[in-house]
């Protein structure tokens, strides 16, 4: 007896055939770039160049060109670092964790989500490098055998753990992403007419032949890598949070940070995926693949993680009061009522209140509203990191050293530059890579069954 779940809607709409999928997904790669792409790319590239200029100015002149001072020794640099790392999280979560949980809906979005992960981790990785006073000595954070005798890195330092966490994360994500891309590159290779293009995709697809053995290895590697990547979803931001949690600064020294940071990362990552995909599906006309159900699913994730983050904020306040430590109490009071109260309340509004709208189905299936909220959430998450970093250290133990922070044009320029760099990479990706994992997607296309049913409905059973 055939039973079909009535609640599961098809994940691919528009009555697609296998060749339709191939055509749709290969189209952006094979066709000429639309004017909108060029405009977007130009803007992103200019932002990128501006950022490069600011970075070179910093390296040439000194960190003093930023707005930091003797009390606030980290501000936008590390805020941006944590923000970009956080954004990266959604990609891994979608591709690895959801793969393990067999969430088929991820297939339409995992490619772009992962691309976003890699590109944002690249941005993130920039900051710990350029925030160093002597970037030319940056390789000293690597445990490289050297001629200085027993001189070694300090394995106690969370900053060193960061180095390992971020580099592992970037490596695993890139490999995972690339493995997924191989059959799709092969698809483009097979269709390419231009010999140069054909040759490039030939190299990229590693001689993929679509044999059963290839598919078997592909599946196995994907599963193994998913297994490897899953702990990274938790570990990377946990370790990033250790930068703060292991310190002695009130407002940083908080044991709740690891889960709170991971939830926040997923929260901001999904918001970023949302922002990007809402644009991609529109421009590349992929509404059938990235449909309202995907959007809704992601909105639910945003709502849940946003609420977790909200609970974490309130827990922090409670613990500060409950601890009885005057420094701790003042740190949190100062966050909410001190000179940076606006940052705190911007964070609260964006991260805790705004996702609560997603309880309403009407709102979470509204594209415009979703887009707005996705941007708001990322603004809020930026402020969260700013609040944690700057408002904690600007007034710590000794009032004599209290200070304030204000960014210079270089701080702002570098941040804008990384956004530009991110979009340069993403736009290049969107034009040259298959933005949806079409090979995987085809496994959930129910064309034969659906066609049969449709035929049956139209013509009756005879």
């Amino acid at each position, binding site marked *: 007896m055939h039973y079909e779940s009535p609640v599961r809607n098809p994940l691919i709409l528009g009555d697609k055939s296998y060749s339709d999928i191939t055509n749709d997904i290969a189209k952006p790669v094979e066709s000429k770039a639309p004017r909108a792409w060029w405009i977007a790319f130009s803007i992103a590239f200019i932002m990128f160049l501006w950022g490069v200029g600011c970075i070179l100015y910093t390296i040439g*002149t*000194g*960190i*003093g060109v930023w*707005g*930091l*001072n*003797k*009390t606030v*020794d*980290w501000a936008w640099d590390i805020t941006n670092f944590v923000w970009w790392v956080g954004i990266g999280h959604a990609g891994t979560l979608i591709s690895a964790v959801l793969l393990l949980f067999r969430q088929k809906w991820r297939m339409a979005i995992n490619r772009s989500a992962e691309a976003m992960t890699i590109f944002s981790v690249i941005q993130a990785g920039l900051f*710990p490098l350029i*925030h*160093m*006073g*002597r*970037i030319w*000595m*940056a390789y*000293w*954070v690597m445990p490289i055998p050297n001629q200085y005798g027993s*001189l*070694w*890195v*300090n394995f*106690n*330092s*969370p*900053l*060193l753990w960061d*180095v390992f966490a971020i580099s592992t994360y970037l490596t695993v994500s890139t490999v995972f992403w690339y493995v997924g891309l191989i059959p799709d590159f092969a698809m483009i290779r097979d269709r390419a007419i231009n010999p140069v293009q054909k040759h490039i995709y030939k190299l990229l697809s590693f001689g993929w032949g679509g044999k059963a053995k290839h598919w078997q290895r592909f599946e196995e590697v994907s599963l193994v890598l998913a297994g490897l990547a899953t702990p990274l979803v938790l570990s990377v931001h946990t370790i990033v949070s250790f*930068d703060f949690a*292991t*310190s*002695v*600064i009130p407002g940083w020294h908080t044991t709740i940070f690891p889960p709170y940071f991971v939830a926040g990362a997923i929260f901001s990552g999904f918001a970023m995926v949302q922002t990007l995909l809402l644009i991609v599906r529109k421009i590349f006309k992929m509404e059938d693949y990235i449909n309202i159900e995907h959007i809704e699913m992601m909105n639910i994730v945003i709502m849940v993680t946003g609420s977790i983050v909200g609970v974490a904020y309130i827990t922090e306040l409670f613990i500060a009061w409950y601890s009885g430590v*005057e*420094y701790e*109490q*003042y740190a949190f*009071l*100062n966050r909410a*009522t001190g000179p940076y109260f606006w940052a705190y309340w911007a964070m609260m509004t964006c991260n805790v209140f705004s996702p609560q709208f997603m309880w309403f189905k009407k709102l979470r299936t509204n594209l415009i509203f979703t887009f707005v909220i996705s941007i708001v959430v990322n603004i809020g998450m930026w402020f969260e990191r700013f609040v944690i970093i700057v408002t904690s*250290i*600007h*007034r*710590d*133990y*000794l*009032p*004599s*050293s*209290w*200070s*304030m*922070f*204000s960014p210079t044009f270089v701080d702002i320029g570098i941040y804008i530059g990384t956004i530009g760099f991110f979009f340069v990479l993403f736009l290049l990706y969107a034009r040259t890579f298959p933005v949806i994992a079409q090979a995987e997607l085809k496994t959930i296309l129910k064309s034969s069954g659906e066609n049969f049913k449709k035929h049956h409905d139209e013509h009756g059973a005879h």
Partner: protein
Amino acid sequence: MTENNKYWRGIEDQSNPELAEKLAQNEFSNEISQADFLGKDELAEGETSRRDFLKFMGFSTAAATLAACEAPIVESIPYVVKPDSLTPGVPNYYASVSYDGFDFASVLVKTREGRPIKIEPNNDAPFNGATNARVQASVLSLYDGARMQSPMVDGVAASWGDAMAAARALKTENSVLVSGSVISPALKKAISKLGLRHVSVDAVSQSARADVYENLTGRRGLPTVSLDKATTVVAVGADLLGDWGGENLMGAYAAARKPGEGMLRHIQVEAGLSLSGSNADARIKAKVSEYETVLAHIYNKVAAATGADKIAAPAVREEIASSVNNAAMELIQAGSGALLLNGLNSATAEKLAAKTNELLASEAFNTTTLEYTSTGSDSAFNALLADVKAGAVDTIITLDSNVLYFSAELAALADKVNLVSIADRADETASKAKVALPLSHYLEAWADAIPVDGVYAVGQPTISPLFDSKSAVEIVNGLAGGSESAIELIKASASTTGNAKAWNALLHDGFASTPVLVANYNVAPSVDLSDIKVGTAVEGIEFYTYTKAGMGAGSNANNPWVYELPDPISRLSWDNYLVMSAADAVALGVENYAQSNGAMNGNTVNITVNGETLENVAVWIQPGQTQGSVGLAVGFGRESVGKVGNGVGVNANALLATTATYASAEIIATEVEHGFASVQLAHTMMGRKIVNEISLPTFLHGNAAEWNETPTFETHKGPLSAFEANLWDDHDHETSHMWNMSIDLNSCTGCGACVVACSLENNVPVVGKDEVRRHRDMHWLRIDRYYSSEMTEAVAEEEGIGAIEKYAKMEVPSESPSVVFQPVMCQHCNHAPCETVCPVGATVHSREGLNHMAYNRCIGTRYCANNCPYKVRRFNWFNYKGNEKFADVNPSQDDYGRMVLNPDVTVRARGVIEKCSLCIQRIQLGKLEAKKDGRILTDGEFTTACAQACGSGAIVFGDVNNPSSEVSHLKQEARAYHLLEEVGTQPSIFYQTKVRNRA
């Protein structure tokens, strides 16, 4: 038989003689294929292959390239004949004296390879053996490229012969020599030989006070005080820790205020918050123009108690009358332990103070032994002004006196006379002179001094003059027609002062005792009050001038250290400003406000005094300032002093006549905004135990476990202290040394000498106003200053005020605050938060209790600075020794200034963190010296720069593993506590609780 003996050269010779012979003939067994390689026609047949050629070629290219990589060799010329006294790397110390017309100090000059690099106190000296911030900084003034490099005639460089001839030609009978106070017998002799009318005038005048004692004793000087004999001191406008007289009272004050029975009680009556007022037990806010009435009131109370005649005087302002009464009662109770000091340049005020002390038979007030560092005469100067106006003066010769800067009246008349200026630079006076004669810095010159009765001191040069300059005594003697060298003049002078020391011993010690050559000098005179007239207070706003701890009278006005040193009270550097009470500021509508980057801005005003107006003067709202009284520091607003000091602040002397102390002023707020360089944004302790302060009764009778409570943590083992509740493995603190430092907050007066000493010792970069404004000062040692607030935990609890409001109100300092100072440097935590977070291990712990910083290993993540609870780590934001922005201020960018750098300490590169090392270079030197001698280090053999410079002995450094060391005793004191002990950092620095002598 002997012929048959056979000796072998070695075992090889015996066993295989042929081989040995062959080897001996062919000592260099590998023949060099040089001949084959070069010069043969048949290259193809040679043994050298093309491969070899390429190998040699490659090797030589690589070698040449590598050789080119070597650091360039800067010309350094070794001694052909090394002077006996000089070993490269080993410092020499010379005793000398420093006197600039304002500060007198007996000093030890540390020289390295012939360069003076540090001034240390001459602790054996009987008078002013301590150094203050200005004397510490003065060594950099030696290496000031803005100094005059040769004599100038009409603005053109000339030889000494020509310049002296030109100066002599200008000298007529109607010429006048203008100088500051002269304390040098040799110079006095030369001046009298010159035979000109001599007018002595001080930039910061004490003339009226000196007049009183001149009339009484026949000697023009100021009284000295013995604080050890005092039990209660009431200082009216007398900043005894600052510019009151020339006597350095820091050490005596700290000693007299040692907590315990008989601790000196100090009441300060003053207009603006001074160092003395900050340290006082009670402070009464009175306008400068009220000082006389306050003194008269105290005198009348004392007179009533002792049966002397009262004098007529206006009533004291109602608000302060009872406090003044109480002060008078305390003086009466103290009897012969009473001491009333006057700081106002007024004969009336001084007589009242002196008479009060006389009535109470004060043992601390000494009018027999006078000090002579401020003996200028205002009346003589006023007479000179009148004569110049009348055209009766042809030529004014200024001797180390920038009189056209501090006297606007004379500056206005400067065209009427010919100027000959003996000065160290083309300053506001010398730049207008027809003949300018360059004066040597005190470190280049011979000098002598009688700063106080009974003490003779000599100063010796520690370096040849850097420029074509001469000492004051030599120039004046030359002008008088003499041809003796400076050393001859000083030697001659030394032989006439009756001191018992041989010349070499005198030079070695720097001082000698000398008889006072005045009859009956030791009989205390009696003050006559018969014609006394007490002035009335200024209605409305009065204006007065004051001196800052860094700038003083302004003789180091091109010295970046004195600008970079934040004012101890306002914590502002690189500026002078009108200090104003909050009430006056509100009335005028001026404010101080923080910018988004933490920099302070403020409004400016136009201030008019006696028709003279200074425009756009910044206003600093100063807690503790008396309402209706505004002050402005002197020494700033220079036009012609050098690239560091030109244009910094405004010239306060423009408003007041040279001889006036205060005047009524009119103030109008302007639209112009002013940017301050403030290093401290929050001014209160926010209810935290940072400076632990208690009252004397609590100290005497209270339980130390209560007033100096050790923070504890609740654990499963019961409450444990931060030292016991410990997550970490401890370092070994028993073996070897364990360096600790005790900082007595009761002794620390906040003067800033340690800050400058630290900067000099450790080559701390100067970053200039703009960077200080951005809170990027580089000081390794800072002196935090906290005001009390009206809001405390107790008040909040009593009135049921919530946390938000409580903390908001705690941020606001009281209008009449109690002030505390706290020197903070790296605390050398034994569980250092910085050490764990550095990714590359650039900051590590030593087994001697120190926290090391390896600059070479630092990559500049600044994580350590963030994680430092004391915020003492400093980051090199820029390349301070190369970046153009710092070219004008940082000595390490100046060819001369660079010579002051301590060769034992690295100048740090851009992008690394730096911080206090507890003068590791001194520790290492001390340990090595002891090791060389094969002995155990003794306590006090060496100390840190800050401890050495501290005139009040607040900082004690030593090895706590040495049970007899001073610091190990201090660690056991009931007052000892660690800053932020509850964080569990286990610092090697500890503080001693401050005790105020009040209920």
